[in-house]
């Protein structure tokens, strides 16, 4: 009886471990590397630049929004959605260890937010520049 309890307890812990893992499947640098791989094939590709990323992040685009409209000029601090008012956790990996660790989430949010802010998808160059910028931000 107790043996059964112990075995099922162990199984539960093992399953929990497996489920928790995908959340931190990759590091921000690994994600940057895969964006770089994507960008290298595109015409006019230049090495990623944090300075260019910062300008892009803070500039207003097609829809009169910038990334900073919701993520603020200091992505190490919490932001607030410009329309709904929902609090947004810090975007800079130094301030929020969950950021840029799931390729699926990264793809989902770049697609959504670039469409909202620029009315188009972002190029791999733009995505790489922005992530390079975010990685330079200290907490």
């Amino acid at each position, binding site marked *: *009886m107790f043996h059964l309890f112990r075995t099922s307890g162990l199984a539960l812990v093992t399953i929990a471990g497996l489920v928790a893992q995908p959340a931190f499947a990759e590091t921000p640098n690994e994600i940057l590397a895969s964006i770089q791989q994507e960008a290298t094939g595109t015409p006019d590709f230049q090495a990623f630049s944090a300075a260019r990323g910062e300008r892009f992040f803070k500039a207003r685009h097609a829809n009169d929004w910038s990334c900073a409209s919701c993520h603020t000029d200091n992505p190490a601090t919490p932001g607030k*959605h410009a*329309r*709904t*008012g*929902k609090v947004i956790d810090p975007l800079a990996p130094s301030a929020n260890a969950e950021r840029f660790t799931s390729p*699926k989430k990264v*793809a*989902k949010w770049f*697609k*959504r*937010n670039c*469409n*909202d802010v620029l009315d188009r998808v972002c190029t791999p160059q733009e995505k790489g520049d922005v992530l390079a910028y975010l990685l330079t931000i200290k907490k």
Partner: protein
Amino acid sequence: MSIYDQKIFRMIAVALLAISVTMPAAQADDDDRDEKYGEKYSGKYGGENRGKPLQPAQTNARFQQECSDCHIAYAPGLLPATSWRKMMAGLDQHFGSDASLDAGDNQEITAFLVNNASNRWSASTAPLRISEAAWFKRKHDDHEINPRVWKNPKVKSPANCGACHPQAERGDFSERNIKIPR
């Protein structure tokens, strides 16, 4: 089986029974007659009636996670199946924002919403805004809610259920749990 094991079994059985008895009360809706007559109440509000609140055990993790990224995960019973199908087919233009999901996630969440949509909606209408449903409008009209409440910045918009229904996230809109902010 030893006597000790039997005792443990009895304890578990009693605990489970206690949970099953208390749960429905905690989830009770504000309109008891609706619950009693279930689908027979589909003629109410001109056929635009919401369904039963969902039990926590019936929920879907992906729905909870994805839909609560930007707002609360609105209970599927608040709208009919046709509304949810339309909503999920147009996520790239979701009330002015791109809220698109990948195909697999979209499919899973659509199935969950459709399977748990209002079972008391008999009208052919299918609004995208919950606040446009007749049941919503009747329960939130000027007789029920002082128009000043909507102007309170803490309320902000009718989409902000949690401002007055603190348990909204769990699909609990019961009248005794309403707290209108000052």
